[in-house]
């Protein structure tokens, strides 16, 4: 007979435990979400060499501001919004300069039928396109596509409504189609 499965503590329970001083709870939250956060930040335009620093800064801000987590949003969605805000701050700090270089030299010449398309070109085009969206559009799109988050969860994390999140998603798709074409 197999041993009964132990139920994993929820993110809510771990956050509450950390609030009571349990550092292992924080470590478990990091283990659960750090990689996904890194993927989100990179997809959203963070430079490769800066991604880990941004992950740590996002987690730092999140743990310091746990009281600001609205429990109707998932911890991960909330983390992503903090990360998105950090990226925006970085863009401002650089006075609008890009976190990733989007000049045309990096993009294959679509008018040249003989141009050999590099592996991963579509992904890089999407990444470049994502950095041209508004933060709201970008976060909604990535939360949907990379995390499969429901509009209700996205709305709770971003402080908007599910209907508005849906509009942002469709608008993001429309703009990305134009940018990636």
């Amino acid at each position: 007979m197999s041993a009964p499965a132990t139920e994993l503590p929820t993110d809510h329970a771990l956050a509450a435990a950390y609030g009571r001083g349990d550092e292992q709870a924080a470590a478990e939250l990091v283990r659960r979400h750090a990689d996904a956060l890194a993927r989100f930040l990179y997809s959203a335009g963070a430079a490769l060499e800066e991604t880990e620093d941004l992950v740590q800064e996002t987690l730092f801000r999140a743990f310091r501001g746990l009281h600001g987590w609205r429990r109707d949003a998932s911890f991960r969605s909330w983390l992503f919004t903090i990360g998105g805000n950090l990226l925006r701050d970085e863009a401002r700090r650089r006075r609008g300069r890009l976190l990733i270089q989007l000049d045309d030299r990096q993009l294959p010449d679509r008018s040249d039928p003989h141009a050999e398309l590099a592996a991963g070109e579509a992904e890089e085009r999407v990444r470049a396109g994502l950095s041209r969206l508004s933060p709201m559009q970008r976060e909604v799109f990535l939360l949907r596509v990379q995390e499969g988050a429901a509009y209700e969860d996205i709305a709770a994390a971003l402080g908007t409504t599910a209907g508005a999140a849906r509009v942002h998603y469709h608008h993001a798709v429309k703009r990305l189609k134009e940018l990636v074409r």
Partner: protein
Amino acid sequence: MTPCDHLSDRMPAVVLRRTRWSADEEAHLAGCADCRAEWDLVQAANRLAAASPGVADQAALTDGLLRRLAEEPVSRVDGRAIRWVGLAAAAALAAAVWLGAGPGPTTVASGAAEPAETLTTAQVDSLLERQDVPLAGWSMLDTPTLGDLNEDELERVLRTWEG
């Protein structure tokens, strides 16, 4: 809901392998260029995530994070309190501008400068975070779009669309 809307809603779950396309959905996808373009986009975004680097050394990340958290204690200031302070500062600034015919420019400048100087980094962040600006591609050629609407405006548009 149109078949395109239905497919669009299902794409994240399918790309994350939580479900599969039905035969009807596959048939629609095969015949609808718009849906295919969206599906290509969703798949590329998903591959982008898969190709993204994770955290190389999670133990080191966690150690560094816990050390920082121990060195800089958790802020117990409620976000609402910060917002009220920000609102008060904004009101003071507005009053200074409104009553600009005071004793002279020195007074106005002083009244305007004080609230800004007393803003904390968190308050400044809070104000800045309300601006929804893109990371890149700032262009005069960008035309206002639905994504530029605020939540209330979006809601009104949605209500119009959805009857």
